């Protein structure tokens, strides 16, 4: 393409960048992306996609697969296909919110600790060490018992607890950036801490944080389903994949496939998230070379 080297022509429109990015994507990354978008589609349009309500009882219990009930019904006579779709919403929604919250809290504090250093860093780090010394599952259990296991409480508690893990990572990578000359230059310029964090540190640690996001997402999801196993996760009749696996888990030991469906939904999502994360981090590392 012919392009004169003027200032305006240097600005490539976003869609074109996205397109060219996609063209270079490895097949695995593309596959992950396609899966993620499919999930996103399902999440957004759940009420339109699901033929029946999340908790509505529509037929006899354990109805077989049929045209009307694609994947049959569960023990209460709820449409499994519809519940799977709604569960996407709840599961991904809660896990995503909690993960984001963890990254907002842990990320912000981690960067502050790395940039400010000194006693602030000491206090925050010791606090996080301490919180991490309390077993996560037990601590979550305690807090959920105290505050009740509403969706909000679940997100807040998991977000805060997982934030400790994010803090550690963020602090470590932000430390590496904080010693860079351009950060020193900003300091010498007299920039405020927040500006340094926002403009100098954050853009440069996004890629490791992003990589962590994939794993953290998995862990938080697993935590939610462990909690629901112990009776403190999302409460019925709300559908979530972990609980759906749990509800029908007994069937596994009889070799039935129903519980495999939500489990597969989880596994596919996890793999897709990590494929995309791998692709992005790979891309980012190539960029810095």
């Amino acid at each position, binding site marked *: 393409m012919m392009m004169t080297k003027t200032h305006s022509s240097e600005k490539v429109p976003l869609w074109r960048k996205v397109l060219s990015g996609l063209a270079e994507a490895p097949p*695995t990354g593309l596959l992950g992306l396609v899966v993620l978008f499919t999930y996103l589609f399902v999440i957004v349009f759940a009420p339109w996609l699901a033929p029946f309500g999340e908790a509505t009882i529509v037929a006899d219990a354990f109805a077989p697969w049929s045209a009307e009930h694609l994947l049959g019904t569960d023990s209460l006579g709820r449409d499994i296909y519809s519940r799977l779709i709604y569960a996407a919403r709840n599961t991904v929604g809660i896990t995503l919110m909690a993960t984001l919250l963890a990254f907002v809290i842990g990320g912000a504090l981690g960067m502050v600790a790395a940039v400010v250093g000194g006693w602030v860093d000491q206090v925050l780090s*010791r606090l996080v*060490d*301490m919180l*991490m*010394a*309390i*077993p*996560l*599952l*037990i*601590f979550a*259990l*305690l*807090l959920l*018992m*105290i505050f009740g296991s509403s969706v909000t409480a679940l997100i807040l508690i998991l977000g805060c607890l997982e934030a400790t893990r994010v803090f550690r990572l963020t602090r470590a990578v932000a430390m590496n950036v904080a010693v860079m000359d351009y950060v020193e230059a900003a300091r010498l310029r007299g920039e405020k801490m927040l500006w340094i964090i926002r403009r100098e540190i954050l853009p440069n640690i996004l890629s490791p944080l992003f990589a962590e996001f994939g*794993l953290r997402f*998995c*862990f938080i*999801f*697993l935590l939610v*389903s*462990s909690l629901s*196993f*112990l009776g403190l996760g999302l409460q019925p009749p709300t559908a979530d994949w*972990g609980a759906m*696996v*749990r509800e029908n*888990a007994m069937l*596994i*030991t*009889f*070799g039935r496939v129903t*519980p495999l469906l939500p*489990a597969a939904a*989880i*596994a596919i*999502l*996890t*793999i897709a998230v*990590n494929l995309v994360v*791998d692709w992005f981090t790979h891309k980012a590392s190539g960029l810095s070379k």
Partner: protein
Amino acid sequence: MNQLLMTVAKRLGLGLFTLLIISMVIFLAVEMLPGDIATEILGQMATPEAVAAIRQELGLDQPIVSRYFDWLSGLLTGDLGQSLATGQPVLELLDDRLINTLYLAGTAALISVPLALGLGVIAALYRNTLVDRAVSMFTLSAISMPEFFIAYVLILFISVQLGWIPSMSKVDADQSLLERLQLTILPAITLTFVTCAHMMRMTRAAIINLLSSPYIEMAYLKGLGPWRIIVHHTLPNAWAPIVNVIVMNLAYLITGVVVVEVVFVYPGLGQLMVDSVAKRDLPVVQAASMIFAATYILLNLIADVVSIVSNPRLLHPK
């Protein structure tokens, strides 16, 4: 060497302080739970008089601060107190279960750590090839499965259909080590699935991270084979991050396996802790938390020591 001792001493001091704070946090958290041991034991059958009587008997009517300090002074004299629910000394309640928990964690670690390291090394060696992708996919699928799901699937195949290993891992002190091992193997495999991916990914990443180091190129230029380069030249320098993640997973194996204990009916600390929280059995909760927290602190200390020992710069300063 001196620095090592200093680090250990400093960490231990800090660890003790952390334990103190944690004991307060847990104490407070259990206090904040609705109800107490009296209402939980009596449940639906609670009458106000019986509740009051239990509270008085157990001293729950005392102010929280004085109860905390009673507990603390007991702890300092080595007395962990008695279970509020059963009146048994906490130490008695804990010791068998602690051994069980450690045994399970140990078995799981013996399987998963070498496996994760091996897979990580293989993935790093054949990075970006089909082998790497397959290992990565497999481990990712494994961690995306809830523990109980993996456990049930294992039980279905190995216990119900093949009948090789009992589905219930009820170990006790009278069993021989071998019997124990047989009973522990299924939960251990389940935990391997759960923990392996994290360690494997970190191993792979830590190794690949170092592969662009000049000394690795140097090793290639010395004409060394890929295995020797990975094992002899890369791994020793990758220990710090790998040990860190191993330690985190070991801590998880010790402190976070309630679900696996429930599914396999394994008498470990996790179930005890959850039951005790549910019944507000504070001395037991406290003791278990202290064990968990101390484990975590000690494991981290070990990780630091390994980092120092594996790094000649830290072990032999100029």
